Every structure is written in structure tokens, then in C-alpha cells.
């Protein structure tokens, strides 16, 4: 189809080309082949003019290899550094959160029998359960300080648990 197109329109194109050449006063060339010099110049344009020696190639390759290896090492070192930093941070947090806790002076809350940090009905319940089961109860559970751990301590603990802090009535 392309050939048909060119066969049909070749005379027209030739005529147009001649007309333009005439107009621009360019001498027409009847030879459709490229001049030899131009052809050679185009060929030389895509041919490396200087051949690269093999040892230079090797040098370039080795230099590139060294550079890439260095970068790879840097990336790897950065990864290990991040892991090490995270580990140090974790150890520090753990140290301050857990290890140092027992060494800090703890204030004993009066009535906190089960040691959960507050006085609530569970403290009274623990003492009452110990009394009901006839267990040997620690003297620290003697909240009212009368020398014995009994129902009075249970009642006192329960009252402490439900005591509402005084505030203004709405």
C-alpha cells in the first residue's frame, strides 16, 4: 500500500521538489544516491572513534565495583546501627520502667492489704476470707492496731473503701 502511494505520488513529489529548488535557486541533482563523503560522515558519527583498551575497561569496572561495595556496606552499617540504637533505647526504657522501680522508696498505703495500690472492698474481702478460713494472718493486716486481726479490721477497711471525700454539695 505504501509502495502504491509512492508510485502514484512520486511524480508529484518530484515536481514539487523541483519547483522548490527552482524557487530557492538550488541546483538540482539528478543523482538520488547520497554523496560518499556524507555517507562516510554519518557512519563515523555512530562508530566510536577511539577504541577503549581492555585494561581501561577493567579499571572502570573495578572502580565501579569498589564504589558500589562501599555504598552497600554503608547501607548495611546504617541498618545495624538502627537496630543497635533501638536495642539501647529499649534497654534504657526497661531499666527505668522496671529495674529501678523497686529501688524507689515506696510509701505503704494504710489498709492496702492486697498491695494493689489502693484501698477498696477487695482489701476487706481478703481479710474477711482469711478470718473465715481460719488462716494465720499477717500482723500488718491489723488496721485498727488493737493487736488482733478480726472483724473490726474488716469493717474498718470496708468503711475506708466507701468513704467519700468531702466536697461541696451540688
Amino acid at each position: 500500500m505504501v509502495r502504491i502511494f509512492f508510485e502514484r505520488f512520486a511524480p508529484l513529489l518530484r515536481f514539487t521538489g523541483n519547483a522548490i529548488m527552482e524557487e530557492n535557486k538550488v541546483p538540482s541533482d539528478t543523482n538520488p544516491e547520497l554523496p560518499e563523503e556524507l555517507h562516510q560522515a554519518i557512519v563515523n558519527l555512530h562508530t566510536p572513534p577511539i577504541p577503549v583498551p581492555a585494561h581501561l575497561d577493567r579499571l572502570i569496572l573495578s572502580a565501579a565495583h569498589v564504589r558500589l561495595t562501599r555504598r552497600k556496606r554503608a547501607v548495611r552499617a546504617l541498618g545495624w546501627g538502627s537496630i543497635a540504637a533501638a536495642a539501647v533505647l529499649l534497654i534504657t526504657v526497661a531499666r527505668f520502667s522496671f529495674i529501678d522501680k523497686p529501688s524507689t522508696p515506696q510509701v505503704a498505703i494504710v489498709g492496702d492489704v492486697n498491695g494493689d495500690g489502693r484501698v477498696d472492698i477487695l482489701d476487706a474481702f481478703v481479710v474477711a476470707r482469711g478470718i473465715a478460713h481460719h488462716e494465720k494472718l499477717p500482723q500488718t493486716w491489723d488496721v485498727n492496731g488493737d493487736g488482733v486481726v478480726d472483724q473490726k479490721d474488716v469493717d474498718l477497711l470496708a468503711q475506708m473503701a466507701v468513704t467519700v471525700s468531702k466536697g461541696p454539695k451540688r
Partner: protein
Amino acid sequence: MKLRRVAILICAMVAACLISAGPTEVVALQSPRFEAIGVYIDPHGKPLAAYQFELVAEQGDVTLVGIQGGDHPAYSDPPYYDTHALLADRIVVAAFNTGSDLPANRTRIATLMVRVGGNIEPKYNARLQVAASSDAKPIAADISVEGVNP
């Protein structure tokens, strides 16, 4: 005779004034009433050996006048509470039972008697502070408040 006419005229004027005024608006001030509030705990199948909750009256003129026990035999006795809280708008109530017959499903664990004044409908907010099993370990439980017939 003249005096009688004047008297009739005055009476007619007064009657006309009373008729034209129409029915008088009466502002009904609601007298204080007493209500019973049931507090329910659902321990979701685990025996409830101890509980502690805080009840706050968020709106309304509410005065706590008394506390009774709940439905289950383990909590039928009045629970522990601060008697000073009867005059406040919040109260902490707690109880425990060291026995083995304990409620494991939703049950009324306390009944609060309150005096409500004014026209604002009271609104309560109960917060469960402690719910524990027989081994004194905390258990998951829900608390709710409902009006009950005393």
C-alpha cells in the same frame, strides 16, 4: 334606694371583671417524692464475691435517704456505704460475701432510696469500681441502674 343602686352597680362591675379574667394559671410545684433505685450487676457467669460501685446523681435534686440489700441471699444485707454521702450527690457502695452461694448472673445487688425534689427528672450514673471472684481476682462485669418499686 340610691345606695342600693350603687351597691348593685359595684357588684355587677366586680362580677364582670371576674368573668373577663378567665381561669387563673396555677403553677404546680411538684412536692418532693421518694423513689427506689435498683443497682444491678451482671458478672457474666462468674460468681460475684465482692463489688464496689460509685453512683452519681448527674442531674436533679436528689438526696439519698437509705440503702437496702439486693435480691440474692449473698447480698441481701445492706452494703457498706459512707453515711456522710447521704447528703452528697455521689456515693460509694460496696459489699462482699465469703460464702460459696454467690450470684453468677445479673442480679440486683443494692437498692437505694432517694428523695427527689423539683421538676427535673434525676439522672444517675453508676461506675463499677470493683467486681471480684472468690479468689479476690477482678472479673469483668456490667453495672446498670433501674427504677424499682420499693
